């Protein structure tokens, strides 16, 4: 974390990224497989409307829908919005129109992008056609976008029934999602982290119950009031409880077994956790007195080591278990 220019609050980039893997039902599977094969399928409702994109249950009646039909790759814009500055992940990198398109044969509209030279070239009611992506995988993005198709008259007639069967149907999609944040921990945690960088541990005392919270989060969860009075705790503390870890974590450069413990720093009203080293794992015990060990450029203790003091009496930490 780095200090912000305008205030003392810490900020740091935080990226949340996840490839969401989703399974498809029979209708969505047929629709997305169809896109891969340049075929657009809709589903017919019990009262005869054709929904494109198709869903498995009627949004009005909740009837189960399985009656697939094939609609045209051409359609009519029902509404639009000109997007002058596309952002990451959107279908086109150059300015484009978002459009809802009712494909010929469909009774509902599909959302996608329209590649057009400018907003003057777009209007509600204009005729458009699908531009297929060159590489198609069975996803809504197999439609690269729509493009103007002013000369194509609206197809008439009922859409033809379709079995929905394809070889090698798509059963699921992987939808990668990435969001970029700037994390700011707030007043209390900023003060805590700033003190840690100076190798001091600072808690905050509740004005009501007098408990000292480490790390502080700005509020006493028991009393529901703000904590403000800063209290330096430690550096020595007492192991209140511990476990022996035998699982080697990925990307963690610590030999197993090792000991992970709750440590009540002297003066703190609750225990924080940390790794215990500098002592054989099977000699760690409740009441062991420990002190933090910083690595050279560390902004927080790497681990805690025994101080050599006599063990703390159980009564001195039993309330902190």
């Amino acid at each position, binding site marked *: 974390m780095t200090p912000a220019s305008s205030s003392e609050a810490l900020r740091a980039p935080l990226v949340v990224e996840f490839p969401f893997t989703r399974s498809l039902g029979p209708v969505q599977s047929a629709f997305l497989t169809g896109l891969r094969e340049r075929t657009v399928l809709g589903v017919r409702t019990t009262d005869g409307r054709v929904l494109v994109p198709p869903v498995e249950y009627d949004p009005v009646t909740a009837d189960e829908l399985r009656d697939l039909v094939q609609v045209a790759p051409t359609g009519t814009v029902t509404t639009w919005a000109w997007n002058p500055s596309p952002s990451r992940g959107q279908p086109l990198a150059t300015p484009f129109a978002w459009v809802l398109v009712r494909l010929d044969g469909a009774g509902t509209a599909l959302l996608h*992008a329209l590649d057009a030279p400018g907003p003057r070239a777009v209007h*509600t009611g204009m005729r458009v056609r699908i531009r297929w992506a060159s590489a198609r995988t069975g996803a809504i993005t197999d439609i690269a976008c729509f493009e103007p198709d002013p000369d194509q008259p609206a197809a008439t007639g009922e859409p033809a029934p379709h079995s929905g069967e394809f070889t090698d149907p798509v059963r699921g999609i992987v939808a990668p999602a990435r969001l970029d944040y700037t994390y700011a921990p707030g007043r209390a945690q900023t003060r805590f982290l700033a003190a840690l960088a100076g190798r001091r541990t600072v808690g905050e005392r509740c004005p009501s119950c007098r408990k000292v919270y480490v790390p502080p989060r700005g509020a006493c969860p028991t009393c529901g009031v703000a904590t403000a009075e800063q209290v330096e705790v430690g550096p020595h503390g007492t192991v209140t409880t511990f476990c022996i870890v035998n699982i080697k974590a990925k990307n963690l450069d610590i030999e197993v077994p090792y000991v992970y413990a709750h440590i009540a720093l002297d003066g703190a009203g609750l225990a924080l956790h940390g790794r215990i080293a500098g002592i054989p794992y099977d000699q760690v015990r409740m009441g062991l007195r420990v002190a933090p060990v910083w690595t050279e450029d560390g902004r927080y203790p790497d681990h805690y080591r025994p101080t050599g003091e006599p063990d703390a009496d159980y009564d001195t930490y039993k309330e902190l278990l």
Partner: protein
Amino acid sequence: MREVAIVAFAQSDHRPDTADVSEVELLLPVLRRVLDDVGLTTGGIGFTCSGSSDYLAGRAFSFTMALDGVGAWPPISESHVEMDGAWALYEAWTKLLTEEADTALVYSCGKSSPGNLREVLTRQLDPYYLAPLWPDSVSLAALQAQALIDAGETDEHALAGVAARARTAAEDNPHAQLAGSAEPARLLDAPYLVRPLRRHDCPPIGDGAAAVVLAAGDTARRLCRRPAWIRGLDHRVEPHALGVRDLTRSPSTRLAAERAGAFDSPVDTAELHAPFTSQEVILRRALRLGEDVRVSPSGGAQAANPMMAAGLIRLGEAAAAIHRGGSDRALAHATSGPCLQQNLVAVLEGDPQ
């Protein structure tokens, strides 16, 4: 049926960026004010319910940190909705109606500043057909606005008038993020953000928190000089597929209003959660609001739209107008999702003055 009222309301000053405080630090002064207003402590509250979103925070279970602000030890009766606090209020209202509690604390908190809100909101869309295209919230609102213009229900000048009215009204709201406006004709000189929407058609993006206290029957009378009685409260949803809906109408709002009793007799005030100017046009018609109704005298969501709190604030503002004696029968509306997908309507009344 048991009578339940909003007896207190507090909100933060809404700001574009609150990086100096954590969610609980943002929330604490608001909780303190709302509880002090009725002379209660968190321990004296029968039920607590909150609204927030992990996607705004970018952290799983982010609401648990905010719980530190309400004193969750010894254990309290508590719940959370991953929605606007207006829906948390709905849950608390049902809890009081079932006589499981006599008082409830409802709060919500939302910080949009850590992320890119327009991108974050794409994650609430259908994950198969919509989310992979990353259509942002302003673009989806623009599709709705264009549909409304094409239908001849409004035009860009009228929308600028909606924005100017809201932000002029907000000059009397010390918590608003945006207050004051140029003349509508001047607003049209600005470039489009996503055509047909300009910046003035869109809500400010910001951080904020709000809290209300609910109480039943005589408890409400004891805590508040003029309780804002909840005469009806209902919420409805429309299909998530935008292409299935008539975007120029809000049948869910109409139905929720009918079920809440909004049309049984006239309201004098309506606090609308209409983040986009075009949505106010749709809501006024869905709610059959005449020219004689004071609409969003706070400036509404166009003056401050802290995600997850802006809907609860509409309920709070409507209740506060009744507490002050400035309204006798008020309507409050909250929305969630793209293009007014989900809508909640409450009807609040004060006792005769």
